[in-house]
């Protein structure tokens, strides 16, 4: 028996995994999208009350104000080490770090490498927007060759500053890393794929399989000096060729969680 009478139904609203706080992120900043996807996944998995997040230093430094769950704020780059300590003494909790490119790929390069190498059973959300946002637009380890920043005013000169680091490619080489993928937040289709990857990464942790990381190509309209929409186009035109999307490591141990 079915009831075909039409009634108004709630299709989408702010997830419970987010607090009611208004974020400090600039208009159109994709940090907000990443936060939302994380909160949606945590809600859908029903793990909000057993999840502990670790915030970085950088634009997401106040993430603990925005996520409605237990949170710690790490020193710059040390979130994977802090997550290691937390997870080792609380193995039944879901522990994730949320890190930008300066935090993860520059000052915290050692900590992320070894957390991945140990197969630490944590999930890392890596926001790559090719620039330092919080300090006002300086060169990041992921800044593209030729990209202008406030510390590479003439564009990143690889003779002087070297080349960008591709963290998915690097970490996927490590035996301890079981799920390492790169996604992008530059349009709706890719945002949907990003959410699936985040879900998969959390499922990997729930199954105790080891280190999982989702890199999200993200925008920084303010420090890139463009509108929010132009910034999304910039991701597509400039970042995708340098940081190809894809599954860099999907361990055979990972069984599909059954879609989302």
């Amino acid at each position, binding site marked *: 028996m079915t009831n075909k009478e039409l009634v108004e139904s709630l299709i989408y609203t702010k997830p419970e995994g987010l607090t009611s706080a208004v974020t400090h992120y600039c208009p159109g900043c994709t940090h907000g999208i990443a936060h939302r996807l994380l909160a949606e996944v945590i809600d859908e998995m029903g793990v909000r009350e057993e999840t502990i997040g670790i915030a970085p230093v950088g634009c997401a430094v106040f993430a603990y104000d925005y996520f409605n769950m237990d949170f710690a704020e790490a020193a710059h780059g040390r979130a994977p080490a802090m997550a290691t300590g937390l997870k080792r003494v*609380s193995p039944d909790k879901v522990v994730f770090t949320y890190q930008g490119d300066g935090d993860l790929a520059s000052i915290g390069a050692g*900590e992320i490498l070894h957390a991945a190498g140990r197969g630490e059973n944590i999930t890392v959300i890596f926001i790559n927007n090719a620039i330092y946002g919080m300090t006002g637009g300086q060169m990041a380890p992921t800044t593209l060759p030729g990209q202008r920043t406030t510390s590479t005013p003439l564009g990143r000169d690889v003779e002087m500053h070297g080349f960008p680091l591709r963290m998915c490619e690097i970490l996927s080489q490590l035996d301890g890393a079981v799920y390492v993928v790169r996604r992008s937040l530059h349009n709706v289709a890719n945002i949907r794929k990003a959410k699936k990857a985040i879900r998969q990464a959390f499922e990997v942790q729930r199954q105790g399989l080891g280190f999982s990381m989702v890199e999200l190509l993200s925008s920084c309209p303010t420090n890139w000096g463009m509108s929010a929409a132009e910034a999304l186009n910039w991701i597509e035109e400039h970042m995708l060729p340098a940081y190809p999307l894809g599954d860099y490591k999907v361990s055979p141990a990972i069984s599909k969680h059954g879609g989302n």
Partner: protein
Amino acid sequence: MAKELLKGNVAFAEAAIRAGCEAYFGYPITPQTEALEHMSKRMPELGRVFLQAESEVAAINMVYGAASAGVRVMSSSSSPGVSLMMEGLSYIAGSEVPVVLVDIMRGGPGLGNIAPSQGDYNQIVKGGGHGDYRPIVLAPATVQELIDLTVEAFDLAEKYRCVVIVLADGSLGQMMEPAELPPMQVVRPVDKRPDWALTGAKGRDPNVITSIYIDPAIEEVFNRKLMAKQAEIEVNEIRYREVLLDDAEIAVVAFGTAGRIVQSAVKAAREEGIRVGLLRPISLYPYPFERVHRLAEQVQAIMVVEMNGGQMVNDVRMAVEGLVPVSFYGRMGGMVPLPDEVLEEIRKVQASIDVAG
């Protein structure tokens, strides 16, 4: 429990285990590595956490993470390694999570050497990391004290939600002597973790462990809270030992291994009729300023002996407030003073009193 012959590094590690330490994160460095090795064997046996980190920087941040979960956790290291931990210690202090650290000091600066030193006094006792905070610092002079103070360190860290550092030197870490280990305490059950800890926000508002107070006015309120806690610590937690001070005309102030050496020299000087005694501070923060000041009102001269270029002597001078002359004798670079050297210095002080008198 009977006394047994124990090496300092092994003794404090086992003492920590018996104090209910649930997790140890560290990095090998001489002269404290036996502690890490002991932990690597014992912690897994007991179903607890041992992890050799990729660096001291990572180790202290793992400690920070585990402490945020509300468990008893520690690390140990030696001078250069402790320098690397200073960032993490500042965050830990700024987040008010309880952490125990043992620093088995060695010669410096820089890579220095692996011989015993007290050269970290200024760094450890005055805070070490950036910002306004002070760890409780306890300085043992024997393996037994190293054991007892390590156990006490966990209680103090939890009582005040602060960093407690046991400050010893390489000779104490490496030395073997008879000592008694404490009974095994029960590890805190998972469901008894403190209410501030990160345990998952089940049926309560989320907990946040952070050291950020972006509004200066609020940061100052937090700073004042830390200061108030320190004031409480300064009232409650001063510890020192006195030897033959009742009738003393000369007081020697020395901590840790230097204090132990001075004790031998004081006994020898007494045999020569010199009225000298020893004040051995055990809590270096909070420092026994008041006791040193009263001593200055009693004696005619004070001498400070340290295994460094003169660090604690500044605290002694501050306490003495110019009431009597304060002299200093120090050995550096990993050199340990002999009782005879100290005795000779005591004689010099006696001679200066005789001339002045």
